[in-house]
């Protein structure tokens, strides 16, 4: 059962990482315009390819 000493902190750290990533995404405005983000990827830039 000694493996638990590792595994529980590892599981918590991974979960915490997800939580921090979510809060960061929320704060930096990633969810402000979901429709626009989906469409923007399709817009052609008028710059010639390098």
């Amino acid at each position, binding site marked *: 059962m000694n493996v638990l000493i590792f595994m529980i902190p590892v599981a918590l750290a991974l*979960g915490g990482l997800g939580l921090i990533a*979510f809060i960061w995404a929320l704060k930096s405005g990633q969810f402000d315009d979901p429709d626009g983000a989906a469409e923007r990827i399709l817009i052609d830039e008028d710059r010639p390819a390098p």
Partner: protein
Amino acid sequence: MTIEAEAGCPSGLEPAARGGQVQDPAPFVTRAGDRNALDLLVRGAKCGGCLAKIEKGVGALPGVEVARLNLSNGRMRVEWSGALKAKQVVETVAGLGYSAAAFDPGDADKERLKAERKLLTAMAVAGFGAANIMLLSVSVWAGGADMGPETRQLMHWIAGLIATPVVAFSGRPFFESAYASIKARRLNMDMPITLAVVLAIGMSFYETLKNGPHAYFDAACTLIFFLLIGRFLDARLRRRAYAAANALAAMQTSTATRLAEGGKAEAVRAADIRPGDRLMLAAGEQCPVDALVISPESEWDMRLVTGEVTPVAMREGGTVHAGAVNLLGPVEIKTIARAQDSLMADIARMLEAGEQKKSAYRRIADKASEIYVPTVHIVALLAFVGWLVAGAGLERAVFTAVTVLIITCPCALALAAPVVQVVAAGRLFRDHVYLSSGDALERIAAIDHVVFDKTGTLTLGDPVLTPGLNTETQIELAARLARGSRHPFSRALVRAAGAGVLADQIEEHPGSGVTGLIDGVPARLGKADFVGVDDAGSGSSLWFRRGDEAPVCFRFSDVTRPEAADTVAQLKLMGVSSEVLSGDSEERVALAARAVGVDRWTSQASPRTKAERLDQLEREGRKVLMVGDGLNDAGALAKAHASIAPGGAVDVSRLAADCVFSGDSIGSVVRIVRIARKARALMLENFGFSALYNLVAVPIALAGWATPMVAAIAMSGSSLIVTLNALRLSGRLAGGGGTTADRRGA
């Protein structure tokens, strides 16, 4: 970089907006150093093509540094430096075939967004805690007897160390609300929630310390997580409804031309107009506030104010109300305070009375919690006393009482109403129907009688030339004069005639008609006495006379909306009767009412008569839904049990209504009532289910069999069932769903 020549959405999801009058957005520009910023609301942008077109078009203007359109809510932020005029930005967007209006995002919106973000963060933290503690709890339950007590205690300690900060952080919305309710000496739903969570944590630490088998850390976290989902959905719904209402308001009025000292004209926001200001109204402009006419005499379209189709001539000193449209040349007006005028004072009083009545309305959820809160506390107390009397120790009695509190915790009850409301409002939102209050759906669901306003609600509002009475030549000749006038009848004549030439030397005579020269012959178009005819008949006609020829009469009718008759018929099938209540003349109201199949109507109703009629209906025990758009409907809208206003309604009416629909179809009324009824049925089902759940769960807890595992399964299971039940509403409902274009609605 070129801009596509064709206007509007390149994917054809939305027709191009016809260029109306572009208001000067200058008062909405904010300055920081030499950098200007403007927030715009753009209507009609539906796809990536629109996005690229608008952003490139505005970005190409000189000095523009930021031009970013948010496709989800239609808001656009433009920042620039240099001499670019704000009006050019709006004109560019309008020129591309989209309607645009400046707006002020306001602090209230930011506050709501902040509150919503706080709830979402709390929900994420609670979700993290619940998932991780569940991981530990499941291993404890699965381990059973094989797990050593030391390992189990370790698991409980870790769970407790996670749960404490998570609950302290995520539970704040509940704790704060419970504290406030105690201070106000009224128990709300948050009281038992707070009690259950705090006791569960405390008891679990006690168990852990003495190495007992049962810890409820997972229950405390899951509980808060589920409850926060309901809270978050509720907050988001409110904010979106609020934003949609704001957007509608921004599209209506925004700026006016104020005459400063010395006669200099400046553009100001409608909100900044003060009593005593002198304003200049161009022909075709809507009056933003109540005002006195200074000069000169003009005709006013009072359709939105009194419901009457025939325009009213107003001399110096006459009062015009917000919503009246100036039909002739530029007019100078002086704004007055609302209370100075009897019509507005009347309406204000009725609005207040309506407000009081509505705040007295108790939501189904409130009624449920009023029964629920004391019941739960009494049952928990009984459990404690019962076990003590039965000879169990103090510890066992406390333990059972706390499990009762945990297991009855209102997860399902708290989710029952909000989830249904969110799903229903989301559906309506996609159909461009915006609810203004949380209990609007419940009240609309209860109605059994609809009172329609006529002008602009049952009818299109714009009069139409009665066909078959005049020859084409007559129409063509008269239209040459009519093209020079903004009078609604003239416009109707022009619509019937189509494009053509204009007469020479056209002159408008307020309150009478138009004169001009047709092929050198003087001609007159206007009221009967204006052209020299003695006719005491109805007001819905225009007379035309060229030279000494015999006068010709044109008749106009206020055409009912094509789907109005169908709407009335469908409402009847749903057991809802209809009636018409209008400020217009008896003849026109009777005609419109018969055309849509309503056999009860009242004409020439003042705002007061309208409100009195509603009171009378209420005394008869009817639950009335009022549908109207005019200023004269505002009092009735506020007084009715529930009310709906079209998006084109005047501000006061839109604010007084429970629900606003944009778009032209009055058929929305049927949809709204249908969805509201379905939503109420689902809500009642959900409350019924929650009650059933408690009937089963409470005896189990009383008997002392509610282990943490049973609590977890029962709580998650009941919440899930309630949510799934609510989602049934988002499925296909009679009448079909929104089109693809609606999907990304405003």
